Each structure stands twice: as C-alpha cells, then as structure tokens.
C-alpha cells in the first residue's frame, strides 16, 4: 500500500495550501511508521502476554522519543487525545489538585478559545480567573502579569505562541518570574512546536499542551508535559492508564506516529525553519509593498517563522478567503463573518484593533510542503482579489484619499 505525497497531491489539485495552522498533512514517513501498529503490533500495553509486552515496549520507546524532542524525561509525558484534552487536564486537573493552596488562576487575553472556555468552566466552579492583557503586538507583559499575582494565585496559563497572529510570548521571562513562587506555569505550545525550540530543561514551565498534528503526526493525539513533582488530578477516569492521569487504552499507532514525527523534526527542523521563514518573509515583503493599505498584524520579528497575518482596509475577511479559494489558494481569516459566534477575533481586539479592522484580516501559515512558488501564486491572485472587493465596497473610498 502506498501513501501519496501531500506536496504532489496539492500540486495535482493545483492548490496552494497556506493554512498549516488549521491542519497539517501527516508526513508519509510517519504513516509508514504507524502502519504495523494497526494489524501486526496491535496489542494492548496493559496485557500480560507477549503481544501486550511488545506494545508496552513500543509505547515506552515512543514516549522516550517524544520526551527527548521537548527536553523532558519520559515519565513527564502523558499521552492524550489532543492538545485540547491536554489543556483540560493541565488547567482543570492542576486547579482541582491544588485548590487548598488557592483559588486564583491567571490566563492571557491571547489564549486560544479552548483555554478561554476552560477558564470559564473554572469560574463557574468557584475559581477566580484574571486575564492579563497583551500589547500592540500580542505579547503578554511580564510586568502586568506580576501585578495580577495574589497570595491565592496557583496557576498561570500563557501560550508559547499565538495560533492566530503567530506572536511568540516571552515564556522564558514569565517562567523565571514565577520561579520559587509556588505558582505553576502552563503553556499551550501548539502554535510553536516544530517551529521554535521547546526545551523544558531550559525553560522551567510546569505543564505544556502538545499536539501531534502540529509535528506532522496524526490528529486525535496530543500530550501533556507534566514536570516532575507537579501534582495534577485526572479529569478522565477509568482504568488508570498513563500513571492514572489519563485513562483509556493508549492509541499506540498514533503515539508511535507522534514519536516518528518528532524524530523527523529533530533531524530536519534546522533546515526546514529557515526555509519557511524565507517564504514567509517574501510574502510579507511583497504584500506590504505591492498592496495599498495593507498592514501586518502581530510582531515583526517575535513571531512564528511560518506565520503571516495581514489586515486590509475596506475589505472583509470571509470575502477574501472565498475569492482566494476560487483561485486555488487556502488561507484563513479572523473575521467574525467566518466564525460561529459572529464575533471577530478576540486576539486582534485585545491587540487594540477596531472591529472593522479585525474583520479585514487574512492569515497565511506555511509548512513542510510550502514552496517559494506559492508566494508567486498568492501574489498573482491577492492584489486582484483585494482590488475587486474594494471596488464593490462603499467604504474603501471613504477611508482613504482619492
């Protein structure tokens, strides 16, 4: 059985895929590593027979390799069904287990909606949650964070980087600030893994939410890094797998896939990241010079190397994404009109943008199968798309000089 190459498939369909933040193809090498675990090495790691022993060996081997990628000890990795579950376990599990120390949790305003909703759940269940603001570029200010710490604070949750505007948080500085305070630091690392080094031996975070797909591994799998000595209560109860922290038979094939994905990144990240950065930089440069009234959201330098997030005056995001789709280009937007809630991106509003500006946002994220030629394709389409939508708009002429 052969696995098709994502790059070839996209080329055959004539699609420029620039939405790697939403979903990444699984690397065919990862798929190949997983396949034996469906039909040959299918055992349950909890079984006492030889088939089960083989599964245990494969599970612990994979755990060691995933741990290595994040500078962790194997026993600090708990496999989950994804980063969302990892964040539930981290935040709810930590808060419940450590309630006697205090009832106050701090999160940043830039967090992914999954973290915002977990925080709301805690509030409904008797905890107090404070949100720390971000600056113009989306960064959490350690100073503002410090001002919000109280004697009751037990946990701080700040993402490693924004899934949306790609801004990298000063997570090292925040970790240092909390060192010795007894306050745990959780970080949602999904937007950063595979793009910048995440080394738990260098940055003293307590808990890290990780996703397999963001490493080009299978979806439906993630992991929580739990620093040795950090106490977390399980939120999913059952047979006591994963040292009691995450019950349910381990998804061995996917776990092996995540390990294979991490191995590939250890070998290739050094070359892959500069390549993506060059593609991204080229797009940013061309958009800002060739399209009038275009702005870059987020920070110029302190951002994920694959992320380009723009806003265009007088144009609405969903209309841009639809128009680009017609030309075979897959991109994303933070406009309300594409969301279920009809609210524009909370991150952009927290950065200080007005609603009408947040509506005009367009996000490109590059990945393993992106090519320099993708920028040429995007730039062959985008200026025309924006000019056309502006020509339909009663707004554009009124916001800019004639």
């Amino acid at each position, binding site marked *: 059985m052969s696995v098709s190459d994502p790059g070839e498939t996209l080329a055959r369909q004539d699609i420029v895929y620039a939405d790697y933040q939403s979903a990444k193809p699984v690397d065919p090498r990862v798929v190949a590593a997983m396949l034996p675990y469906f039909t040959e090495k299918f055992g349950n790691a909890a079984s006492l027979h030889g088939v089960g022993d083989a599964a245990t060996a494969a599970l612990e081997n994979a755990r060691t390799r995933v741990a290595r990628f994040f500078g962790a000890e194997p026993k600090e990795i708990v496999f989950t069904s994804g980063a969302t579950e990892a964040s539930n376990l981290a935040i709810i599990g930590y808060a419940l287990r450590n309630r006697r120390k205090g009832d106050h949790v701090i999160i940043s305003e830039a967090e992914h909606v999954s973290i915002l909703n977990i925080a709301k759940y805690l509030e409904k269940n008797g905890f107090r949650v404070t949100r720390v603001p971000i600056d*113009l570029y989306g960064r959490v200010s350690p100073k503002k964070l410090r001002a919000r710490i109280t004697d009751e604070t037990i946990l701080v949750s700040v993402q490693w980087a924004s899934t949306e505007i790609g801004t990298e948080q000063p997570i090292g500085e925040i970790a240092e600030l909390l060192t010795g305070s007894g306050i745990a630091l959780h970080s949602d690392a999904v937007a950063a893994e595979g793009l910048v080094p995440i080394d738990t031996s260098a940055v003293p975070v307590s808990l890290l939410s990780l996703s397999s797909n963001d490493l080009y591994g299978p979806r439906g799998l993630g992991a929580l890094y739990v620093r040795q000595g950090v106490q977390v209560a399980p939120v999913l109860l059952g047979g006591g797998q994963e040292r009691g922290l995450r019950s349910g038979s381990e998804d061995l094939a996917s776990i092996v896939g995540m390990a294979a994905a991490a191995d590939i990144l250890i070998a290739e990240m050094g070359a892959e990241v500069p390549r993506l950065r060059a593609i991204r930089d080229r797009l940013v440069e061309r958009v800002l010079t060739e399209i009038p009234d275009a702005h870059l959201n987020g920070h110029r330098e302190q951002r994920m190397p694959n992320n380009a997030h723009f806003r265009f005056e007088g*144009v609405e995001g969903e209309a841009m994404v639809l128009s680009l789709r017609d030309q075979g280009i897959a991109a994303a937007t933070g406009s309300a009109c594409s969301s279920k809630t009809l609210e524009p991106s909370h991150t952009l509003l927290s950065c200080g943008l007005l*609603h009408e500006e947040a509506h005009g946002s367009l996000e490109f994220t590059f990945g393993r199968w992106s090519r320099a030629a993708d920028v040429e394709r995007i730039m062959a389409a985008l200026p025309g798309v924006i000019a056309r939508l502006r020509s339909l708009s009663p707004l554009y002429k009124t916001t800019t000089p004639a």
Partner: protein
Amino acid sequence: MKSTQYTEKTLEHFRNPRNVGTLEGPNVAVGRVGNPVCGDMMDIYIEVENDRIKDIKFQTFGCGSAVATSSMITELVQGMTLDDALKVSRGDVADALEGLPPIKMHCSNLAADALHEAIKNWREGIKPEDATKTPGGTACHPTPAAVAEIEIAKLDEYEGKGLYRRVAVDELPQLADQRVVVLDTGDRAAQLAMDLTDHTGRVVLMTTGKGPSVSAAMRSALRLSDVKILAEAQPLELLGEGELERIRVHDLNEDEEYELTADAFVLLE
C-alpha cells in the same frame, strides 16, 4: 453548517455580482444599512420612473453573503413598482439564492432592508448625499443613539498612569509602541496624533462626531497619515490594573458599549 457553505447560486452572485456601482441624477435615492463594525455595510441606489424601479445599483462591504444578497436583490426588483419592491423580504432574497447558511440569515442578509430604506428615502425626498453621510442605523442593532455629554469616569485615577493632559515634543518617544488614543479636541489634538505616528504604529483619534472636528487642511493631512479615526465614539471610563489598559467606549451610532484596548489616553487641556 459552516459559514462558507454557500449554495452555488450564492457563490455565482458573489463571483459575478450584478449591477455594482452608484447612480446619479434627480430621480435617484439611496438606502444605506449596516456598519463596518459589524462587518457588513451596503448602499442600494434606485432610479425611479413612474413609481417603478427603472435602474438599480449597489455597493457592499462585507462577506460572501452580503455581496451575493445585494446582487440578487438588484435582479429581483428591477422594473418593479415601488409598492411591490417593498414586499420583497429578506426571506425572498435568501430563497432566490436557493438558501443561505442559518448563521447568515440575520447578519448578512440586509439587502432587502437597504432597498426598503432607499424607497423610503425616495418617498421622503432624502437626497443620496444625505443618506450616505453616516453608517446606517439598521445594522447589528437598530437603535441610533442619542448623543449625550458624559463625564469620563475614573480620569484622575490614571493621572501619570496612562492619562496625558499634555504631551511635550520630548515626551513623544515615551509612547513608542504604545496604543495611544487621542480624544479629538480640534487641530492641536489631530496634529499631536499625527506626530505620534512617528513613534508608534497605533494612534487612534477618537471623536464623538461623524468625523474629527478639525480644519479642512488638517482633515486631508489626517487622511494621508497613519492615524486611525474612530468616529461616533464617546469615552465613558478608563480601566486597568494599576495603569490604563482599556477604555470603555459608547458607540454612538450603534448605541452599544465596548472596551477598546489602549495604553495611553491623551486628553489635551
């Protein structure tokens, strides 16, 4: 259903919208609804002859369904009597497009409202230039606001903590990379806002009016600058933990309150 799961007919109208543009002349009226804040705004122009729609054009800022519904209605009512055109509803437009995603039925299906507004303006003799001066009032929420003079709460608490009553030239660099909101108090405030754009990428000139109360020369200078104008906005209260972080704002057009993120608020004396 995803917001983008449009019918082929909707996509076709989005790709090739009919009757885009404006109309001029003595027999023309326009209806404007929506608001850029909500993400949708449209103008529908009608030319009336013998109580019938002789010609119709539109301009729309918004998502796929906002564009498609505008285009669709211009086809539906071409040549209709005004009374018949008034009977064309949002539902009729959605039906003509063979359906809209449920989430789009209310927020981005304003074309019928814009048409009705245009007919009303025609009957009341409201000229196009008067009808398009401001964002429409029938957008996300239909009540236009009463402008009231309101004191800004907690001003004194932020003295030296984000509130500036004056900014000397040598103090401008202190505001580097800050989100600065300057309250429109005339040309001096506008000039300061423009000077600030050399130091930070984010300068908002907030005015309670429909545009800044500045001289004509200053207005054109502002247009060419990177100053973002926030019109019909009344600051109500300064908020923040120890220092200014947000401004509670009354949107006078929508009669809604929201919070605007800001690091500095300039209220010149």
